[in-house]
């Protein structure tokens, strides 16, 4: 069989296996469906109610940030799932089979797109309930969601590499918390980046998380026309393009790294 087709077919088999697990492991389902609801409600009512943006709607401002943070955290699944398979010897079985050498990773990252789709669906529904509105066309809004998925997909390859490297789901979870929290907070996710002190502001403005969030806000029409103009930084002036460039670079670097790590990894 053609190697590309083979990778695709094997990847589909692996992805199907991962999806069956979502259905059977309550932990995964709860994390996928409940935590996004919790985040939306928490941020909307705790921050959204206490912080007043003159002429603006802080709750709407927050939604894109919550979406982005949640799907980026979703990449933790990719890493933890692979680490668990490694620990349990499942990867050994895969590696002893005449299957495509990259299918386990493509299958894993593909099934995590589904997880993220579920999360986004739940968050969007919860968001609409608490007053979030799309003020552009449905197509633009869909474009925003798609961009979120693309960036989350790219980032899941980073965590795939980390998962294969550390081989322990617990370590992946802790490590990702240490990395993803600052990564998603030093950005315009929950506060306008202009308000940050200078070094942090620079980091925040060039952080791809900021561009994802900025792009979503624009595509959802959640930018308040009364508020200050978008910072005059290329990354935030062209948020969609900047996000796509980052996604491409991450994939170009981490797919080969993760595949190489997979080929040489054994569980014990």
């Amino acid at each position: 069989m053609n190697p590309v087709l083979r990778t695709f077919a094997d990847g589909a088999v692996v992805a199907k296996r991962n999806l069956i697990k979502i259905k059977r492991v309550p932990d995964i389902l709860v994390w996928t469906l409940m935590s996004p609801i919790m985040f939306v409600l928490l941020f909307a009512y705790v921050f959204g109610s206490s912080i007043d943006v003159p002429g603006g709607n802080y709750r709407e401002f927050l939604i894109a940030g919550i979406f982005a943070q949640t799907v980026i955290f979703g990449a933790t699944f990719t890493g933890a799932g692979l680490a668990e398979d490694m620990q349990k010897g499942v990867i050994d079985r895969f590696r002893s089979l005449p299957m495509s050498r990259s299918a386990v990773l493509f299958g894993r990252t593909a099934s995590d797109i589904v997880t993220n789709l579920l999360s986004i669906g739940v968050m969007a529904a919860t968001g609409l309930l608490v007053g979030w509105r799309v003020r552009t066309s449905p197509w633009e809004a869909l474009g925003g969601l798609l961009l979120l998925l693309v960036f989350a997909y790219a980032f899941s390859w980073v965590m795939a590499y980390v998962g294969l490297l550390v081989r322990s789901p617990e370590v992946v979870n802790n490590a990702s918390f240490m990395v993803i929290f600052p990564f998603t907070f030093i950005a315009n996710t929950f506060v306008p980046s202009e308000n940050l002190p200078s070094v942090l502001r620079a980091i925040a403005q060039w952080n791809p998380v900021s561009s994802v969030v900025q792009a979503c806000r624009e595509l959802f029409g959640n930018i308040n026309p009364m508020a200050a103009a978008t910072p005059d930084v290329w990354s935030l002036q062209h948020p969609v393009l900047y996000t796509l460039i980052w996604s491409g670079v991450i994939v170009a670097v981490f797919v080969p790294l993760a595949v190489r790590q997979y080929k040489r990894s054994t569980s014990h």
Partner: protein
Amino acid sequence: MIRARGLVKRYGSVTALDGLDLRVPEGRVLGLLGPNGAGKTTAVRIFTTLLVPDAGSAEVAGLDVRTDPQVVRTRIGLSGQYAAVDEHLTGFENLDMVARLYGLGRRRSKARSRELLELFDLADAGHRPVKTYSGGMRRRLDLAAALVAEPSVLFLDEPTTGLDPRSRIDLWGVIRDLVAGGTTLLLTTQYLEEADRLADTIVVIDHGRIIAEGAADELKAQVGGERVELVVGSGSDLAVARTALAELASGDVQVDEHARRLTAPVHGGAGVLMGVLRLLDTAGVVVLDVGLRRPTLDDVFLQLTGHAAEGQADEGQVDEGQAGGPGAGIPTAPHLDGDAPTIRDEEKEAVR
């Protein structure tokens, strides 16, 4: 069918394999026997393309595992030390997944999975998630997964470690049937009895090197003669009994103080046994149990390495509920009902 020449594998300063040579002809069973850390699993990992050796060559089915790994993978089946089946999938889903990844089409894959479930007595459990399976059932499923593509060469890495005695004996039956069908098998084990029962040839390794090789009978002959084994009534009798036994023994007397058991090689069979008893009677030693037996692989191991196979109690007591010795590394399965969880489950529980 399987051949290794001068395999070397090091992990940092630890040498796992130190110039291993192996040969398994087609349709034969080689038992690779050794304690934990002897290098058994490392050897299997090299043959199954999971690990690249630092030196030496390995061939499976006439193919070099380093230059042709992907073709080698189509010819082999591997069943690991820990049952590498997905506990959230059903038995059927596990087999179907593996079959698809071997390249079987959708229909053939389903048919083969059903056939294997039937063959391994898992048909009724086939639609339950594996996490509801007993340790023995998981091992059978893992073995079934290794056989999906009807491989000509099979590698079983400690297939019964952690199983309770009854499940172990069941699995031995399954493996014997397979081998009767002409599959070439390399089996690693730290159970001496297992190698004795299943393998045509036994290779004993320790610290990555071969220390003995031959058929079970040849290895036993190497140790020579029969063994007198006796158990005395009190610990204080051990020294006296030892002296008495040494007079008639053809080699060193082994003393297990905890079990108050003495063992010694003898020449001359029943006559010697009588002589031993007479001596002990004169010395006033109370003998609880006495017998003459052929040497076991334990004796072979002791003789060759100067130490017992780690964690291994005496052979031949499987039926009495002894799944593994009290020593390091080997899980003791206290259950006899065939539903004992594997050690792995217990570890997982602890992690949670």
